[in-house]
């Protein structure tokens, strides 16, 4: 993808990447994580379309679950062969040796059959018991997931109930909707959302974020991930609805959620399905496993930390199995972020580190979690290299200086955004 950016190998000014991060920067047109993800989605589509025979479906189940794989191997191992090979590999006397082996096999047949029958019975019982145990474990797993979903939803209600409780005598009347309650609290997230209500975000975005076409161009890099989403895709904090427009172009059903009345009205004028609601309230209210994908760009930096954590938990519960999550935000590993994007928007509370969001996504239960860097600073805005010199004595200094410039350049003007991409 055009916006894909991978860290060069010789970048020592940044902290070392976590194990498994790509370190090779060549061949940027191949991203094996994306390719494997694409293939997994293709397989999911074929499963959905009923294109595989039952034995392959069993294999898929086993492949995704180590216990299933172990059971399959156990089943294979329980297929005992009753006939011992009697062929001989010897060049000479092979006929005689084979005949001798057959005679011995026949003579001992009654004995080996007696033992094999017992082994076979034992094997069948082991397979049956293991299968029953595995099914029981899976049932417990499903129950645990259901409980986890219920717990997350209940936890998300706690701040609302807290706000409704008449514990503080000077607390204002909170008879309005839950979204309003959340905004009225004095948390960082509350303050940020209050800013968003006061600020004319449509005018603000038109001036500072970039044109509709520019943002659509940037966000089109994520489109492929949602092409075969197992359900509707929601764009949380959809703003002017650029991504919803893109989804329409590929025929993927989607809708948006935004708190800004002006944004919602603007989207609806363009025929987009957008609801005015708090994004966390919305996530908590949709049925479990009902969403095919969640897209959330340039929003989490507006939330307070507790809400960021809750966001990932709620997203996991709301998504269907195989559903995709894409969360894009400012990249704090590039110092240019701190001189521009971070402070331009009054609603920004704090930048979020890619490692933190990866950690939260994995903690919530997402799989295939990885980071994509995007929005590189154009070459004209970056530090320039010194030209090579013909003076052989000076050249090592020029090389050294250029290496140092490169490191400083990466630190100052690295990619401006990143996205955490994950799958439920």
């Amino acid at each position, binding site marked *: 993808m055009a916006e894909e950016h991978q860290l060069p190998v010789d970048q020592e000014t940044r902290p070392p990447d976590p194990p498994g991060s790509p*370190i090779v920067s060549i061949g940027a047109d191949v991203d094996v994580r994306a390719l494997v993800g694409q293939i*997994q989605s293709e397989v999911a589509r074929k499963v959905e379309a009923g294109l595989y025979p039952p034995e392959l479906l069993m294999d898929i189940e*086993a*492949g995704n679950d180590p216990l299933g794989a172990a059971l399959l191997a156990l089943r294979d191992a329980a297929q005992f062969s009753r006939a011992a090979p009697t062929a001989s590999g010897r060049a000479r006397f092979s006929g005689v040796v084979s005949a001798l082996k057959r005679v011995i096999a026949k003579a001992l047949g009654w004995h080996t059959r007696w033992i094999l029958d017992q082994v076979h019975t034992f094997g069948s019982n082991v397979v049956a018991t293991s299968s029953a145990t595995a099914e029981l474990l899976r049932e417990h797993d499903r129950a645990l997931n259901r409980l986890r979903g219920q717990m997350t939803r209940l936890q998300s209600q706690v701040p609302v109930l807290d706000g409704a409780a008449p514990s503080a005598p000077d607390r204002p009347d909170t008879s309005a909707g839950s979204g309003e309650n959340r905004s009225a609290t004095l948390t960082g997230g509350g303050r940020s959302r209050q800013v968003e209500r006061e600020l004319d975000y449509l005018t603000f975005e038109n001036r500072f974020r970039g044109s509709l076409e520019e943002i659509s161009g940037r966000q089109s890099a994520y489109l492929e991930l949602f092409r075969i989403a197992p359900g509707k895709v929601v764009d949380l904090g959809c703003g002017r609805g650029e991504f919803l427009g893109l989804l329409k172009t590929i025929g993927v059903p989607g809708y948006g959620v935004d708190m800004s009345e002006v944004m919602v009205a603007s989207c609806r004028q363009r025929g987009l399905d957008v609801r005015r609601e708090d994004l966390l309230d919305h996530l908590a209210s949709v049925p479990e496993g009902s969403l095919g994908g969640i897209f959330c760009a340039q929003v989490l930096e507006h939330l307070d930390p507790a809400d960021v954590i809750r966001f990932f938990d709620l997203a996991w519960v709301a998504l269907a199995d195989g559903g995709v999550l894409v969360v894009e935000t400012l990249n704090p590993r590039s110092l240019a972020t701190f001189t521009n994007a971070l402070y331009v928007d009054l609603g920004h509370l704090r930048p979020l580190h890619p490692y933190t969001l990866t950690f939260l996504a994995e903690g919530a239960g997402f799989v295939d979690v990885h980071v994509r860097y995007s929005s590189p600073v154009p070459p004209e805005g970056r530090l320039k290299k010194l030209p090579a010199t013909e003076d052989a004595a000076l050249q090592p200094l020029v090389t050294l200086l250029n290496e140092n410039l490169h490191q400083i350049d990466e630190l100052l003007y690295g990619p401006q955004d990143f996205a955490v991409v994950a799958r439920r």
Partner: protein
Amino acid sequence: LTGHQARSAPTRASQASPLRIGLVTPRFHPEVLGGAELLARWFAERLSLAGHQVEVLTTCALEMTWENVLRPGTERYGSYLVRRYRADRPDPKARGELEPLIRLGQRLSVQDEERWLRSGPASAAMERDLVRRGGEFDAVVGLPYLLGTTYFAFRAVPERFFLLPCLHNEPFAYMSTTARMLAQSQGLIFNTEPERDLARRIVPQLAPSAVVGLGFEPQVTGDPEAFRAKYGVRGPFAVYVGRLEHDKNVPLLIRYFTRYQERCGGNLELLLVGGGDVQPPPGGRIRKLAIDWADRDAMLAAASMLFQPSLNESFSIVMMQAWLCGAPVLVHARGDVLTYHCRRSNGGLWFANYPEFEEMVGRLERDEGLRRALGANGREYVRCEYGWPQVLERFEGAFSGWGVGRG
């Protein structure tokens, strides 16, 4: 100690103070081609060429029967010394009695575990000599973790013993004798981060450790066309190189490839290169091939892809060799070390089930550009991360960090 940290280390390999290293390994001979044995041989060569004083302590055995076929005594291999000791007579009775229990995950007493380790390979002569001459070494490095030669070397010279475990997720890794080495060695040298993660799952409080890996020559030799002519391989082929064993997940590869042929057709052939009990089914497009070791690179350069279905690898030398030859790699998704390499290199794909295998093999078979791009990424990865200068720097950096060889 990752590649990033190593590159920023202030000293270069050649500037590090020379170490006196004893390398304990059960078999050591150019004919022995197992992963751990190759690792020992390559390290012995490279460390001695870098100026370290290396002595290999090994047995007189060539095969895993531990029969003493080579002469005891010393032999000079270029820049280092090989000292051979007679291997103890194996004890098949103790092995037969105890090994099934270990494989079933039963906890044995330390005495029984040591009895199993002593059942072969082990060398009392080597242990006596280590006790007597241990002081001549700054470091005694033992590998791999699950053999008696390694464990009893640890017992003989614990104060200067370093373990290069080549750890796999298998029942032997969970024995208390293994845990003891992982916790009480003077230092642990891992091949990859996932290997160290596995060790941490077994022993949360590990001895000091470093991830070093293994080095490779960037240049490969061999003519793919000459290979095809010599072995009569005409069409496109995928290859598996390694032991043909259940433990290496080869039956699964055979099952998947057979099904691929049935469902998708095509003329891709699978070559199985290596010794072992697993046999390909008759009549299909899978065949065993015995090749000269010298033709390995030519074969990998001619291959459309390398399959590596094993779930238990601590490094995978053959993956690196395939990448150096420009071949893409397809690995099993539950092989942590293998997917780690693929993710870091952008040079290979991983499948979790048959349908994914089918999609991936199909794409690789059809798309030469994809094969080339993956192979090129893999080659660059091996050159950047596993060139000998980087590996030696990490090795020396680790020992320097542990304060070894400072008088």
